[in-house]
């Protein structure tokens, strides 16, 4: 239990957590103290003066500490002579506050009057009109008329782009500095600042690049007025005209809770379209923030390039056909090929789709293999054993806790986790970053560990060895229910740990809570399997499993990689298919030909290729039948995030005519294969079946997933001024499934990882995932186009010098089956002997590290 103190607000006593901000403490008990500059997720500034209250404290006898009382027996209160700002007060025992007196009312009214002297009255055209903190508090506390002359109203620039996504209206700005503090404190990129002073004070940026953080959109939510607007939404609709629909971000494994604001749209044929994406509060996932990829990456759902009818190859050309014809043909082929058919899913398919695909595979052949694309991940078992405990919230980690980020560039792979890990570091948590290359998180790391590509698992193995050496083992857990400890112990005893890893390991093992965030940066699925096993080993032997805020977080490449693994789809199966190409491919939102140049040969002999996709991808162009499926916006379903939280999304947008949700397409196919079961009518029924047949998902019925509990701080109730315009969660908080470590009767197992690290000869090309890329579906967002770089490769300075390549030169890169031309960058990010090649910027490249040859292209 946290320590509480007693405070008195308006004559009523309350017990509130010690050290809490007074505004929050009042809010906790439903008492309103209006604010503009204070925000519950940021430090106070005391700039707007809206939160004025009468403040005092109970007088105590200095020696005895007894409360002094007056003749009526009431405690004596020493009041401040003037009104005080509540936001700059933390609660203490005996604090006395009055929020309802005439003096307070007058103070608030005057502040509103002052603010309005320089605020334009353009609410009719303002995007915030209708969900504006200033509007709200003016109605509530404003004087109704002004002593100031209208002609003296302050005028300022109304269209100041702060980057190409966020536009500032200086006239509307009330200088609360929320955006300035947000950039400085939360994001750590202080690119917004004040300039000048007094009446001329303005927000500006002179940074290069300007306001370009991937979290920039959040400032428009916390702006208490309409000063900051997004280029995406500007004038899209009035807030009251839109219907908010809870949904989940399909772009990364964080699984940010979103609200899609939808409205009928003339541009979309008069049908319901997403007008803007807003964050939805989920304190265990994304709090009230989202990244710009999630906020602005919704245009693909309405893009021109979306497939709108099934296509079938006739005389070498893909021609439109009816669903009936397409399904009949595919079903016939499935029956024909039977066990020679191979099924692969992409990592952004919903659980319902995956389940129906699995059913289709099983209906086709009992031995059917289920593949997962891109084929770069592994470690389902590690997650099942040692995944983070149920109830884990990164925002709860602080002093005394530790986070290890290995093989992941969180800023690019899971921005919200980057933000939360950074904040944990600032709260005092020990952050260790281990990667083969520098990443943006290094700045906040207490220890940075560099390894060579291929050695990531070794680092964690060494950490486990340090646990053994420093006696940081959980002996009880090991003896009670861990298998394979003897073999691992033997192996650990013999390992030699480099000094820099020793100190990092010691810092981690000291911690009370330990969370490991493991990605797959620069590795194929074989190495990833080892890394995940090593992470599970470390967590199990040190006892950091089976409870909240401890365990493994998988930084998967996709929004639903976890779900795919849970359903039995594996990268290993794709590896086998590559080695022994199947006669028939059934690919659901998977694009192996667009991701990995090596895959082409596996398709050479294929007799029949079926692709279910939203767009005509590289693989779809090779297909014999293409089935047009729906995006996340148009159907309902569930995603399972990297912390195993199953979350529901709802139908937001009118579906494109001629498309089906993938699960429905597969269900209809199943029905046609050897008299399969009748398809379900609703996604909910599919989930019902999953709960019955897939043990970890037993609790995941739609009703349970839609369950909502009260969260603090309360966001977007009647008080938009307080938390901003992020949405309250009405769609469900989702549920995490329990790991083996959390079930006391289940046994855990550890095993040594490969002793020898994978080594490559010569120059190594390493694929890199970047946040803003040209992968479908994200690429279809024209707004973000300027943020996606032209195809490039990062070279080490020494390698570049040896090759005679300089920054900006054109180079030819040959790695395995991939042959591409790129622009060289020499900026110190690439370790020696390594060429970093971002994926999905242009031509098909490599999916896993591969030796390469680089040549300069002479002009």
């Amino acid at each position: 239990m946290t320590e509480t103190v007693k405070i008195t607000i308006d004559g009523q006593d309350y017990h509130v957590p010690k050290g809490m901000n007074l505004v929050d403490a009042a809010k906790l008990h439903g008492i309103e103290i209006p604010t503009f500059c204070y925000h519950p997720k940021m430090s106070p500034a005391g700039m707007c003066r809206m939160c004025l209250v009468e403040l005092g404290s109970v007088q105590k006898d200095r020696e005895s500490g007894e409360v002094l009382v007056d003749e009526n027996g009431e405690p004596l209160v020493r009041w401040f002579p003037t009104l005080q700002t509540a936001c700059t007060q933390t609660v203490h025992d005996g604090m006395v506050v009055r929020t309802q007196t005439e003096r307070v009312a007058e103070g608030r009214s005057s502040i509103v009057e002052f603010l309005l002297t320089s605020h334009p009255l353009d609410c009719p055209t303002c995007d915030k009109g209708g969900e504006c903190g200033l509007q709200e508090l003016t109605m509530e506390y404003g004087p109704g008329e002004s002593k100031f002359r209208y002609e003296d109203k302050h005028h300022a620039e109304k269209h100041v782009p702060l980057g190409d996504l966020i536009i500032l209206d200086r006239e509307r700005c009330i200088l609360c500095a929320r955006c300035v503090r947000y950039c400085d404190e939360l994001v750590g990129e202080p690119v917004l600042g004040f300039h000048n002073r007094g009446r001329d004070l303005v927000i500006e940026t002179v940074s290069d690049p300007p306001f370009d953080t991937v979290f920039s959109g959040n400032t428009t939510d916390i702006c208490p007025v309409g000063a900051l607007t997004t280029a995406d939404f500007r004038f899209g609709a009035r807030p009251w005209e839109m219907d908010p629909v809870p949904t989940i971000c399909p772009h990364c494994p964080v699984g940010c809770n979103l609200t899609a604001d939808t409205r009928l749209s003339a541009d979309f044929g008069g049908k319901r379209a997403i007008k803007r994406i807003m964050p939805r509060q989920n304190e265990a996932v994304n709090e009230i923030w989202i990244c710009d990829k999630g906020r602005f990456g919704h245009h693909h759902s309405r893009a021109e390039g979306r497939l709108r009818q099934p296509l079938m190859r006739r005389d070498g050309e893909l021609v439109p056909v009816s669903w009936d014809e397409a399904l009949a043909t595919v079903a016939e082929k499935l029956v024909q090929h039977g066990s020679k058919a191979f099924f692969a899913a992409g990592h952004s398919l919903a659980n319902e789709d995956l389940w129906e695909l699995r059913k289709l595979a099983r209906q086709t052949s009992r031995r059917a293999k289920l593949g997962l694309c891109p084929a770069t991940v592994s470690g389902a078992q590690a997650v099942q054993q040692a995944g983070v405990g149920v109830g884990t919230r990164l925002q709860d980690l602080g002093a005394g806790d530790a986070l290890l980020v290995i093989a992941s560039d969180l800023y690019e792979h899971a921005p919200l986790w980057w933000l939360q890990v950074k904040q944990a570091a600032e709260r005092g948590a020990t952050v260790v970053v281990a990667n083969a290359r520098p990443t943006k998180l290094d700045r906040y790391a207490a220890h940075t560990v560099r390894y060579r590509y291929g050695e990531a698992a070794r680092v964690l193995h060494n950490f486990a060895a340090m646990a053994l050496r420093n006696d940081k083992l959980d002996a009880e857990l090991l003896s009670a229910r861990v298998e394979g400890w003897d073999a691992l112990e033997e192996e650990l005893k013999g390992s030699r740990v480099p000094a820099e890893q020793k100190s990092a390991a010691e810092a981690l093992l000291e911690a009370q809570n330990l969370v490991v965030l493991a990605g797959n940066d620069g590795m194929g699925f074989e190495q990833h399997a080892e890394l995940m096993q090593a992470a599970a080993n470390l967590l199990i032997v040190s006892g950091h499993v089976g409870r909240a805020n401890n365990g493994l977080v998988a930084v998967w490449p996709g929004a639903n990689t976890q779900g795919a693994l849970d359903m039995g789809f594996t990268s290993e199966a794709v590896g086998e298919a590559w080695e022994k190409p199947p006669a028939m491919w059934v690919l659901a939102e998977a694009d192996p030909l667009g991701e990995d140049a090596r895959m082409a040969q596996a398709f050479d002999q294929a007799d029949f290729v079926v692709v279910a996709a939203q767009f005509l991808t590289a693989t779809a162009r090779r297909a014999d039948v293409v089935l047009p499926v729906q995006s996340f916006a148009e159907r309902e379903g569930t995603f399972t995030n990297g912390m195993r939280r199953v979350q529901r999304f709802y139908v937001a947008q009118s579906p494109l005519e001629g498309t089906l949700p993938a699960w429905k397409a597969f269900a209809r196919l199943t029905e046609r294969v050897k008299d399969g079961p009748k398809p379900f009518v609703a996604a909910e029924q599919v989930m019902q079946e999953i709960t019955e047949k897939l043990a970890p998902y037993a609790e995941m019925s739609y009703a349970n997933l839609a369950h909502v509990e009260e969260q603090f701080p309360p966001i977007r109730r009647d008080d938009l001024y307080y938390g901003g315009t992020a949405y309250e969660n009405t769609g469900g908080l989702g549920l995490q499934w329990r790991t083996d470590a959390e079930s006391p009767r289940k046994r855990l197992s550890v095993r040594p990882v490969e002793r020898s690290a994978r080594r490559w000869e010569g120059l190594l090309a390493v694929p890199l995932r970047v946040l803003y890329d040209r992968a479908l579906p994200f690429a279809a967002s024209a707004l973000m186009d300027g943020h996606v770089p032209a195809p490039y490769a990062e070279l080490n300075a020494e390698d570049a010098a040896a090759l005679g390549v300089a920054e900006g030169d054109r180079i030819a890169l040959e790695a395995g089956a991939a042959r591409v031309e790129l622009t060289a960058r020499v900026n110190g990010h690439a370790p020696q002997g390594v060429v970093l090649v971002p994926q999905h910027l242009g031509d098909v490249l490599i999916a896993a590290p591969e030796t390469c040859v680089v040549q300069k292209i002479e002009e």
Partner: protein
Amino acid sequence: MLAEKYPERIKQIFAKYPDKRSAVMPLLYLAQEEYGWLTEEALREVAGLCDIDPTQARSIAGFYTMFAEKPKGKYWLQVCTDLPCALRGADQFFHELCEYLGVDPEHGGTTDDGLFTVEPVMCLAACDKAPVLQNNFHFHENLNIEHAKQLIEKWRAEAAAEEDKDDEAE
């Protein structure tokens, strides 16, 4: 480049403060001394030295009136027109001074010959001696417009003499 030209001075400045960012103001003065005013480049240089964002450096330069964010005349005249000074006639003094120099009487400005820049500023910490005129950070107190005119003419003559000298030297 400041870092190359004044390595010693920069080192001394940094030595006075617990962390780099605290040294931003003395470094801005140094840059202003070097370039005459705080150019965008100068701000970036100082920000780089202090390991802060250029926006933050500019924020500081913008707040304090003693940092010049635009080129100034040879004589940079600042008059406080805040309330206590205004009560002693400083605003009237400022208008008259502007009119005498032929610049915008509301906001001040630089004379056509580039010799004088006049600007109203907040508080020069000399309320008791208002109207007060600050010429390149030197105070002239208890002024009236006649006295100020004499000062102006004196500086004008000074500048002319210097110019003659330069011409002769050539």
